[in-house]
């Protein structure tokens, strides 16, 4: 099972990329743990998580080919 992960704003300073694919994560908590292992700096950052463009508040199951995005505070306008 593959999940597309997107990073935005200042989070890209930590990840060095704006997207990557993760295997084996079946929910958003597993995915976050895997991302924290790969990018320890992320754990200290403040961000929202969206699954298929919907911001989630609780642990959410991932379907094959879900897109998860890590969204730091917005600063448009």
């Amino acid at each position, binding site marked *: 099972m593959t999940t597309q992960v997107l990073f*935005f704003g200042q989070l890209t300073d930590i990840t060095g990329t704006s997207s990557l694919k993760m295997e084996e994560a079946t929910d958003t908590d597993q995915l976050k743990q895997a991302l924290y292992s790969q990018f320890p700096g992320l754990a200290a950052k403040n961000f929202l998580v969206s699954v298929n*463009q919907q911001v989630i508040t609780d642990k959410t199951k991932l379907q094959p080919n879900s897109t998860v*995005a890590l969204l*730091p*505070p*917005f*600063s*448009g*306008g």
Partner: protein
Amino acid sequence: MSDHKPKNIFVQGPINPAFIGESIAKHASNTKIGGHSIFLGQVRADEISGKKVAAIEYTSYQEMALEKMTEIREAIFAKYPLTCMHVYHSLGVIKEGEICLFVFTSSAHRKPAIDACTECVERIKAELPVWGKELFEDEGYQWKVNQ
């Protein structure tokens, strides 16, 4: 999520003041309009610990931003008796003094136009997944924080 394809609000680069004039002129044919309210965001040359902001580079999670903008648009049309609402947000590098946001509401009377414009600007700043990177004159940058 809305059924129809969301309307694009993003433009690459700054918003040209002449385009704003042309947008206003197009509304002359709608003679039910009595008032227009416009908000423009302009890139400010802030000084941050002695460094001057020369430009802001905007990026967005566009698909999500357009869905959210459709939701905001529908909520504002449901709340205020508007004849129309137009929103444009820049992406890419926008230099100091250039326009990066253009929100334009029209109504038969001034109050709905003004209130809808203000609410739309507040919601855009709070809810759209858009990020500004403040590029300093000399070198370096910092990520913009909205108040």
